[in-house]
């Protein structure tokens, strides 16, 4: 199709907008509200053009090209009108500095901008130098505003996690609203009211948290002004470089780009144009990574436990001590805990070091318990994330997609929106719930029976509930049903039994399966090393068969176990109660190159972008130095030497587990214990720290060791956010603070624990509660 833009004949595809056509041919038309990933909006009116034969001044972003169109984009009238329009926009935008004569000199008088609560002009705005509005002002050469300037005096919204909102800077382009709705399928915010009363936000006075914001940061990325700004990067300025990497905070290992300035990580974004890409990251990949790598709590120097107490030592001294401890001990009496966040290269080095040099086979990880093994062994049949696209019926089972697994929840939402029936089985309301054809809550305390009923109902027509009938009917008429399993199953006392039934259901119906887990390289760990279950190692420890514990980035204990010595090697300090004899600071993601394996055993590589803090060094180098000290064999542990040894295709081997009969009796709630308490281990763990514990903003959305309660229940019991309550089961009781949130249905309580074990048994557990201090 041929069109003429500004006397230039160009050939364009049918169906694209005039703005896109112009941009493809490097003809600049000023625009603010249009956005690559979003449907045309026509809000800012800056992209007005003239088209021969058309009345008025259509907007280029909403008008499609037509054959032989003659378009003018830069006539005098147009530019004059654009200037008027832009001035109208600026009349409600703190912009003194945009047009101030002294703007160049301004920055030299700037003092502590961090202390300025509100943006008062462009040089005092977090977006200064990187703002689309500034660019258009420059282009249209605005040097005065003829209209009266009106400051809206909206309060700055900085009380919620991860990003601040200053709608005094907002130009109502609705990019944030549209990216949240169209791209992220969350629809948390909307344009409210009209005209000069317009504001942006959730319904009523709801907080973003309550409105279901995932804190994915897509809105922040696409905001053309400083209205939305990332708390952690607000005054960071423009990055020096953007480096490709992957996120290490769950097994999906999303592609990301790391923003660097002066050798420091200042932010992470999804791949693509930093201002255009809404991306598919969750809050962890988008906001948490920067916090963790720059955490002031990092372990920066080796520490040794002298008789007088802990002291900092040099690497030489530390290596000597480690050598001494390891030489003195019989290899069979060494146990090793590895973090599932280690890279393939680190795991392989650990294998060579501990198997060949130290001579131990007591290798495990704090997460390798029997339930995890039942769960993860299903992953041999797991499909890849992309294949979800092909399904025609989706069933998620105990998937808690809140603040997690964004690419997965996004593909569920996309499919469901297009009409694929989506059943959500489980208690928790997450970002996918709104899209569920049906959310099915298994009868409390009878979860196993529930799945059994589904299996029965598949085998022969029956008298099960209408919900199950509908589910089974839909699965049966689908040609490609997919079960998506969430790692929350692992925490249930009856996990093993439930998983067996699910496996049966899958075989009966010919369904596919997809598994997630919160660990970046669990698959790699299970593929490269023969491990033992941690139950087995714990037994060895309690039988006093272990003298030395070597813990790498893991956090397996609640108190010091009965062993002679403990070496902890991690990017973060070992917990105080462990009384580690030696703590060795290691480098983490961002500071090392390495690779992770995905659920299908495919390998994803990433590169170092910065140096470790203080004296921390790479795990492989630590092995190298200790090996030299004890010098039994000549093995090179360095990244280069090791990476050649990694097999092309990975296959998992599972540790042997002895299954003990269940001790706890599972029972439904009753009149004395009417509520069902669900315990979930905080999945947001990285090495030996919890993101909730380490990042204040994360703590606000995923609070550990607090009871989450439905608003209706809370109202009935006259309990408020922050109250403290007694939770009592038939054998245990404890006091917790309360958080009131809609993510859990009535008559359920949710407890996200910081510990690896649960206080209440079984899980879920019938309890009753009463207010503390009444």
């Amino acid at each position, binding site marked *: 199709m041929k069109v003429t833009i500004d006397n230039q004949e160009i050939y364009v595809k049918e169906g694209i907008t005039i703005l896109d056509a112009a941009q493809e041919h490097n003809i600049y038309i000023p625009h603010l509200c249009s956005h690559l990933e979003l449907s045309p909006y026509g809000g800012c009116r800056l992209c007005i053009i003239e088209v021969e034969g058309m009345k008025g001044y259509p907007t280029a972003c909403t008008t499609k090209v037509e054959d032989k169109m003659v378009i003018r984009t830069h006539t005098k009238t147009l530019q004059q009108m654009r200037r008027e329009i832009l001035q109208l926009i600026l009349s409600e935008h703190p912009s003194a500095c945009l047009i101030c004569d002294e703007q160049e000199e301004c920055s030299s008088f700037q003092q502590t901008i961090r202390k300025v609560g509100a943006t008062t002009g462009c040089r005092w705005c977090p977006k200064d130098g990187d703002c689309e509005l500034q660019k258009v002002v420059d282009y249209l050469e605005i040097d005065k505003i003829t209209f009266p300037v009106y400051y809206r005096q909206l309060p700055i919204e900085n009380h919620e996690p991860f990003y601040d909102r200053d709608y005094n800077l907002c130009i109502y382009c609705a990019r944030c609203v549209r990216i949240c709705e169209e791209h992220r399928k969350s629809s*948390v915010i909307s344009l409210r009211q009209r005209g000069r009363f317009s504001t942006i936000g959730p319904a009523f006075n709801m907080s973003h948290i309550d409105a279901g914001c995932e804190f994915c940061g897509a809105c922040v990325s696409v905001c053309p002004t400083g209205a939305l700004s990332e708390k952690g990067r607000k005054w960071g300025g423009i990055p020096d470089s953007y480096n490709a990497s992957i996120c290490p905070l769950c097994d999906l290992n999303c592609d990301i780009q790391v923003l660097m300035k002066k050798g420091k990580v200042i932010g992470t974004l999804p791949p693509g144009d930093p201002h255009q890409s809404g991306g598919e990251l969750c809050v962890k990949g988008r906001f948490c990574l920067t916090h963790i790598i720059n955490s002031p709590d990092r372990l920066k120097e080796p520490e040794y436990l002298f008789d007088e107490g802990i002291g900092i030592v040099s690497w030489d001294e530390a290596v000597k001590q480690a050598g001494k401890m390891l030489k003195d001990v019989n290899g069979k009496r060494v146990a090793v805990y590895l973090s599932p966040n280690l890279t393939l290269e680190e795991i392989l080095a650990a294998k060579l070091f501990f198997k060949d040099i130290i001579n131990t086979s007591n290798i495990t990880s704090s997460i390798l318990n029997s339930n995890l093994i039942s769960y993860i062994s299903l992953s041999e049949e797991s499909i890849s994330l992309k294949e979800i696209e092909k399904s025609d019926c989706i069933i998620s089972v105990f998937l808690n997609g809140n603040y997690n697994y964004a690419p997965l929840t996004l593909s569920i939402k996309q499919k469901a929106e297009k009409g694929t029936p989506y059943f959500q089985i489980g208690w928790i309301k997450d970002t996918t719930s709104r899209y569920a054809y049906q959310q099915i809550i298994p009868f409390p305390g009878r979860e196993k029976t529930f799945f059994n009923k589904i299996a029965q109902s598949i085998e022969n027509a029956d008298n099960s509930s209408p919900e199950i009938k509908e589910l089974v009917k839909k699965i049966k008429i689908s040609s490609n049903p997919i079960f998506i399993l969430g790692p929350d199953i692992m925490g249930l006392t009856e996990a093993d039994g439930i998983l067996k039934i699910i496996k049966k259901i899958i075989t009966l119906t010919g369904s596919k399966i997809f598994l997630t887990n919160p660990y970046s390289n669990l698959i790699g760990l299970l593929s490269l090393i023969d491990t033992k279950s941690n139950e087995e190692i714990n037994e060895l420890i309690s039988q006093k068969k272990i003298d030395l514990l070597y813990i790498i980035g893991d956090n397996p204990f609640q108190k010091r176990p009965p062993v002679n010595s403990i070496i902890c090697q991690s990017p973060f300090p070992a917990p105080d109660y462990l009384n580690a004899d030696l703590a060795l600071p290691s480098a983490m993601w961002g500071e090392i190159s390495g690779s992770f394996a995905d659920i299908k055993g495919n390998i994803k590589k990433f590169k170092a972008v910065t140096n470790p803090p203080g004296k921390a060094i790479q795990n492989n180098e630590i092995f190298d130095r200790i090996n030299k000290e004890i010098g039994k064999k000549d093995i090179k542990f360095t990244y280069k030497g090791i990476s050649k040894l990694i097999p092309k295709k990975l296959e998992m081997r599972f540790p042997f587990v002895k299954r003990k009969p269940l001790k706890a009796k599972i029972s439904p709630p009753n009149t004395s214990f009417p509520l069902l308490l669900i315990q979930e281990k905080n999945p947001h763990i990285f090495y030996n720290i919890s993101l909730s514990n380490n990042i204040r903003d994360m703590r606000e959305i995923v609070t550990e060791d607090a009871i989450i309660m439905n608003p209706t229940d809370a109202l009935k019991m006259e309990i408020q956010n922050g109250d403290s309550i007694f939770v009592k089961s038939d054998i245990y009781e404890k006091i917790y603070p309360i958080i009131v949130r809609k993510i859990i249905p009535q008559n359920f309580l949710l407890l996200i624990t910081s510990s690896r074990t649960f206080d209440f048994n079984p899980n879920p557990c019938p309890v009753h509660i009463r207010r503390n201090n009444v």
Partner: protein
Amino acid sequence: MTELKKSDFEKKTIVDFKKDLINKRKQHGSLIPLLQSAQDSYGYIPEKTVYYISELVGIPSAEIYGVITFYSQFRLKPLGKHVIRICEGTACHVNGAKNILKSLQNELGISIDETSDDGLFTLLSVACLGCCSISPVIMIDSKIYGKLTPDMTKKIIKEYKKPEKQNVS
């Protein structure tokens, strides 16, 4: 005003919608009638209803709230016992509607689109009441008061307040 119970509301309107809409997400065309019927039933749109409709038709509450606040026909607060409409049309404007508005505001302690704390009065503004010849004009419930002065306005409002005071004592 009789408040409908949720069950009545459900019977009257929701059930049919449910059948129709549960599988057709995001049918914005159906939202307006649903909101209108909520307002007809309750006299306004209670916050709870917004969440309820949202769950039912799968339209996010933020979007529904956006629609409600965009159209002036929808109210999020119940109307007062008496609805006062002040005309701000051209004729009334020229003949001093501003002063009438001021005295109303002084007397009631509320501005346009607000309801007094005692729930007695809601003040609304209209563009023309169609009786420009007796401007400036206000309408209380269905009664028209014309050729007003600020003092007259005060007196009228006092009249409306009287029976209520008696009830209290």
